[in-house]
């Protein structure tokens, strides 16, 4: 398990309410949350409960309806967009990919928050891109168009881009939605591994209780307008997963 002593808080939310406006808000009870380095948090809840909005808010791409999110002690709204992009990446596997872009070109975009006005890449950038592609095992098809890849390969490419971005916080929106069972296991193992090795904090939304309990450190559930968090082994006992078995 995680070495608790070396953990530190990356992302913290206080009295947070998430949604697109007061009128349309899906969450009713403000919540506190903190994301520690080296941990993977599963984000669960029914469709439309606000998981994606929550991730977008954590990424600083959506303003909170109330409360605030702070990154390394500073409110997200005070971060310059480019510096924020060096800390947080929200990975959406469903993003439409341009038909002509190759894997390596896409992973190179991860260095965009570090580049100058003419978007050039230094040797250092290229080294980091190569390293990220090697880590996610996509280097052997670096020159193929992303559009031609299988879903499993593509999800690894999206992760490689976020790794190249050298972020500390990785937010993933249903990364295993299109993956088969062995590839989903591999993906969650990989998330755990990079979280530990790179001292990253990972929040991953998923519909699979099995992966959440087995690979994640904590489980966060959005249900009935409230957000609750518990350590993965205690979530079931605490009743956090009750909603998964009732439908009326």
């Amino acid at each position, binding site marked *: 398990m995680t070495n608790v002593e070396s953990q530190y808080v990356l992302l913290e939310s206080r009295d947070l309410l998430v949604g697109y406006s007061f009128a349309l808000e899906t969450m009713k009870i403000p919540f506190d949350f903190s994301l520690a380095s080296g941990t993977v948090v599963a984000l669960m809840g029914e469709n439309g409960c606000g998981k994606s909005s929550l991730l977008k808010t954590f990424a600083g791409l959506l303003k909170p309806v109330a409360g605030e999110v702070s990154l390394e002690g500073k409110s997200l709204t005070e971060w310059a967009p480019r510096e924020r992009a060096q800390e947080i990446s929200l990975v959406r596997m469903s993003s439409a990919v341009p038909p002509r872009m*190759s894997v390596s070109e896409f992973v190179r975009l991860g260095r*965009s928050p570090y*580049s100058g006005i003419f978007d050039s890449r230094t040797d250092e950038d290229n080294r980091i891109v190569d390293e990220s592609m090697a880590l996610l095992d996509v280097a052997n098809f670096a020159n193929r168009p992303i559009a031609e890849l299988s879903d499993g390969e593509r999800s690894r490419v999206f992760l490689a881009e976020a790794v190249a971005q050298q972020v500390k916080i990785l937010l993933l929106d249903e990364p295993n939605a299109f993956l088969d069972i062995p590839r989903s296991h591999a993906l969650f193992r990989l998330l755990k591994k990079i979280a530990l090795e790179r001292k990253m904090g990972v929040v991953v939304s998923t519909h699979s209780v099995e992966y959440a309990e087995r690979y994640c450190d904590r489980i966060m559930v959005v249900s009935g307008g409230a957000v609750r968090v518990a350590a993965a082994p205690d979530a079931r006992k605490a009743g956090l997963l009750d909603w998964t078995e009732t439908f009326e």
Partner: protein
Amino acid sequence: MRRLLIGFIALGVLIVLLCVATLCFGAVSIPFASVVQALFSPGADVSSNILWNLRIPRMIAAVLAGASLAVSGLSLQTVFRNPLAGPFVLGISSGASLGVALALLAGIGFGSVGVLGSAALGALLVTLVVMFAATRFAQTGVLLIVGLLTGYFIDSIVSVLIAGNSSESLRVYVAWGMGSFGRVTLGDVWMFVFAVVVGMALIGVSLRYLNAALLGDDFAHGLGLNVKRSKICVLLGASLLAGATTAFCGPVAFIGIAVPHLAYLLFKTTNHRVLLPGAALCGMALALLGGLFPASVPLNAVLSLVGVPVIMWVLVRGSGARF
């Protein structure tokens, strides 16, 4: 890397050759020696006159128009994430046509402004409409529709103006509509240069956005880019390039939509650091090639006649057996 180097060198050589050809060939045949002499020590003779008043302006116009339309088309295709986008879909060319139609057909007294100025005014007007839409609607799809509708609306106004007209002014308007590199004079070419430099600069400073925009605005936003500002920069730049070209050369349709694809097939990259200069060079080459044909043949017809086979050939060659 090798592909890029060879590509850029080959295009550079091709453009130089086409420039030389543009200076050497024309309606009046001038011996090569006289061309060289007129170029380096211009006198009061016929050769110098033709060279400096006709062929050099035409060459500059072709180079500027080709580069402008290609860069404008490429950036619009990227921002709209649509391979069919181009300066025409934003209605910019239609705006310029309206300006010219009002000046020539309706006789609305722009007076000193002239055909050129009214074309520029028309293009600017449509650009403002599109920019307004761009600030109101985040979705690029809506923007595309606004551009197309504006274009249709303006084309209808032009049709009505044409219907109520006859004779000389109509003939001039139709001639303008066919496009030509021969209307620019050395006296006003600096305005064209200025517009192109500003337009290219606006697009150049948005390079980071263009590369990320291929994956959508959400993605670009996530990379820490100021999407709204960058998008406005690109649209303004693209409009300026297309508007200036249309004002000076008439509506030239083909280059903006086709050349970006040609550039991709040559350079095999989606990186705009390569693609933008690549497309600019391809556009120059195609425009110069089109400009070599006799002035009596409409430029738009020539560009399509020359360009379509070239691009078809590259498409078929470049894709191998994939399709």
